[in-house]
């Protein structure tokens, strides 16, 4: 059926190269793709597979050191090598694009109304005043509440999901033939992700445009795309109808990707296991405003009377959307934030402990962060990074001893010990996350708070990191608090789940109970959004 439709974008032998100090890097190695009118093509692949660079190359949006070769024809018109002026006739009008990061892809200096009007005025002429009516229509179309008021809002006044809707409105302004969506929902919460995808789907029905969806999330692809192209290392390894690819994958890589969904369960610890970390009535308040010459302050309660008891060997999964206070809770439990409430570590009451008193306990209470790029200091070698804790907690160790411990820790997380002389920027995301884990493990902690440790990683790498974390837990009898918005990972990692919303616990219980029979409507939406997009 879809085969009958006209091909609107034909990519043949497209190559994208980047010249770097270490020679040319081939990001895309001569790929062929076809996009037919009105269909949804998903381009799937892990980070670095060249899926975004392909589209950037076609749109002429490559970084300065990038070059594009080959052919990309839009309704017969060659786009590659077209001068920017001629290219502008097509891009922004016939082919439009939405990006991953709605926070940064809108200009904070202009109202959203003006930004949506920009492509209309540019491509169709007229004034901003004339375009206003059309902008209102578009805002209504993408489901922004109260478009009449929102049209004069600035981007920072909108939530992430609303900004992404604004981006979509901008992309739709000139009724494009082809919409390229580059990871449009990756930065959004699951429930909002579902809404945005629904919106795209309904808009597609209405306007009959084709969508190229670039994503690494196979869950989205399955429910959203008609055809799939799987990319790896700059090549298309497999292309075909979504159902075919999911049911009968041909390429090994595709099989691997499909199998990468985290699986398995964790058995709960024995009931008699002692409680190792406890927080009662945990509250964290942030002061908003205030200052030398400003008047009153208001208080924002990020975590509101949360109770949490972590048993030895247990993993508590904390789930919730962004802003639900789950990360703040983790930091409060580690006493890294000023907070009120009662805290116990083992048998010690640590409620009133100041930083000096906490210091000796730090080695047993460790933290692993979400962003493997930001959590490692770029100017220190891996060896220096992972032995930093020893420097504080075991200052008597000699240099050689520290080096030996670094080697052990790196081996434990499955990295080559020789890598301790290298710098973080030379490693991939997954490897960096292993380094961050090694930094926590070298101190032989009892409790590790994992703050979205897998969110920034590709699915297949995610699986490996989860496997590693489970291994470490078994070997050392660790207790984890696993903070994540990714429910499938939480399901695989934890034996107890806490669902948070607006700083409060909405529901808690054993993993099976929560996932099989959620009681609260919020939990139901969350699970619904995550598992059947």
């Amino acid at each position, binding site marked *: 059926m879809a085969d009958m439709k006209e091909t609107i974008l034909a990519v043949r032998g497209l190559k994208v190269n980047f010249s770097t*100090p270490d020679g040319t890097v081939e990001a895309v190695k001569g790929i062929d793709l076809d996009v037919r009118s009105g269909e949804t093509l998903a381009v799937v692949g892990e980070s670095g597979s060249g899926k975004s660079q392909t589209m950037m190359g076609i749109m002429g949006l490559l970084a300065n050191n990038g070059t594009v070769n080959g052919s990309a024809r839009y309704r017969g018109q060659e786009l590659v090598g077209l001068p920017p002026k001629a290219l502008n006739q097509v891009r922004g009008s016939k082919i439009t694009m939405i990006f991953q990061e709605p926070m940064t892809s809108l200009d904070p200096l202009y109202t959203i109304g003006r930004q949506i009007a920009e492509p209309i005025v540019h491509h169709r002429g007229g004034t901003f005043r004339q375009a206003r009516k059309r902008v209102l229509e578009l805002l209504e179309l993408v489901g922004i509440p109260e478009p009449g008021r929102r049209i004069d809002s600035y981007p920072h006044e909108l939530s992430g999901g609303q900004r992404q809707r604004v981006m979509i409105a901008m992309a739709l302004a000139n009724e494009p033939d082809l919409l390229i969506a580059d990871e449009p929902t990756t930065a959004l919460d699951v429930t909002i992700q579902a809404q945005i995808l629904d919106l795209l789907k309904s808009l597609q029905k209405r306007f009959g445009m084709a969508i190229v969806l670039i994503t690494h999330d196979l869950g989205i692809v399955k429910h959203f795309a008609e055809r799939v192209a799987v990319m790896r290392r700059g090549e298309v390894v497999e292309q075909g109808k979504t159902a075919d690819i999911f049911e009968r994958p041909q390429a090994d890589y595709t099989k691997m990707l499909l199998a990468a969904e985290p699986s398995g369960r964790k058995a709960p610890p024995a009931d008699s296991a002692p409680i190792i970390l406890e927080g009662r009535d945990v509250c964290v308040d942030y002061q908003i405003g205030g200052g030398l010459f400003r008047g009153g302050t208001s208080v924002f309660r990020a975590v509101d009377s949360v109770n949490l008891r972590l048993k030895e060997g247990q993993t508590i999964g904390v789930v919730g959307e962004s802003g639900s206070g789950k990360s703040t809770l983790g930091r409060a439990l*580690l006493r890294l934030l000023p907070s009120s409430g009662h805290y116990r570590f083992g048998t010690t009451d640590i409620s009133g402990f100041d930083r000096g008193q906490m210091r000796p306990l730090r080695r047993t209470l460790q*933290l692993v*962060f979400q962003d493997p790029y930001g959590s490692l200091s770029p*100017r220190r070698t891996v060896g220096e990074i992972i032995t*930093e*804790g020893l420097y504080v907690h075991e200052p008597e160790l000699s240099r*050689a001893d520290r080096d030996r411990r670094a*080697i052990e820790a790196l081996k434990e997380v499955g990295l080559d010990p*020789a890598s301790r002389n290298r710098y973080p920027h030379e490693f991939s995301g997954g490897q960096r996350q292993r380094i961050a884990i090694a930094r926590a493990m070298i101190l032989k902690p009892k409790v590790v708070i994992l703050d979205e440790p897998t969110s920034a990683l590709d699915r297949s790498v995610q699986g490996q990191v989860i496997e590693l974390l489970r291994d470490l837990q078994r070997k050392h009898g660790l207790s984890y608090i696993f903070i994540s918005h990714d429910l499938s990972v939480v399901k695989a990692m934890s034996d107890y789940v806490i669902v948070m919303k607006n700083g409060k616990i909405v529901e808690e219980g054993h993993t099976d109970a929560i996932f099989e029979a959620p009681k609260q409507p919020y939990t139901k939406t969350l699970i619904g959004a995550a598992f059947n997009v």
Partner: protein
Amino acid sequence: MTDIVQTPVATPETKGRSLFQLAAMRFRRNRAAMAGCFMLALIALFSFLGPLFVPHTYDQVFPSYVSIGPSLEPRPDTSTLQDVMEGVATRARVTLKEFNVEGQTFTATVTSEQPIDARATRYFDRANEFRDTQVVATEDDGRTLKVTGQVDREYFPFGTDSNGRDLLVRVMLGGQISIAVGLLASLVSLGIGVVYGATSGYIGGRVDNVMMRLVEILYSLPFVFLVVVLVVFFGRSFILIFLVIGAVEWLDMARIVRGQTLALKRREFVGAAQALGLTDWQIIRRHIIPNTIGPVIVFVTVVVPKVILLESFLSFLGLGVQAPLTSWGALISEGANNIQSAPWLLIFPAIFFVVTLFSLNFVGDGLRDALDPKDR
């Protein structure tokens, strides 16, 4: 366990490239910046090693050569010497038949009606220009005398100033002082500014407020006023110049570092360090300061020329280095006063000054490009 200990430590090929090494690679590919580096090295060599190769000292006065223009010819030139020699001959009541100068020696042939007394050579030595005059040969029964001796010929490729001092040496000395002031004062401002800014930014809150208000108060004090006060209190000395300039320049540095620190503070590796139990000072020293290095280095390359300019301004006011010591700034202000009568007094120090500033700016640009990761 034991076998792990024996694994060879750090095989050379696994040595990673740090961000700094990557930056150095990018820097080396920047032609303008490398040329700037090269020029700076040349100027530093010229200023610091140059005086070893020039026989004059910076405070040596040549009364015979006041305000003479630059020339590659030795002074006095041959025609002047001819005139002087003729004067000498007249005084000695002899006739000059032949006169030649070759390098540092001269030969002259003088004749007279009567035999010439060999002691007539004293007349030659009495002139400033000649010395060690000796009779080489007597001819015509002593009526013709061939004498030879040394000429004091001086080279002033840059000319001399109005006191008769060699401008070449003075430019070298000025370079020494300007470069030293530029570097040392920048280091002083770097040291104070980085520590102050990092501390203020990292600790934040009330401490930050107090520390930054202090900076603003210091900002609002007029520079000259501050200098005059310090000079009055501590007396005039060379060290004071570094301190005064450094004490003023660190304010900018502190603000830049504070801004950087505020951004770095939110980075997760700082959070990780806190979770590891590092103290504030350890975090500042091990994580904050090393990561501010990029913008700081770039800013230093801007501060150095600024400091050199400030120093010349102070010298111009009479608060900087004092004669006979000098700096490029002092030389330029002196040259500016004599621009009509002796333009070279302005031109030479200005050339060196401008080339140095240009080179520093190129190097600064190069460093900024090299250290900016967005370039990649």
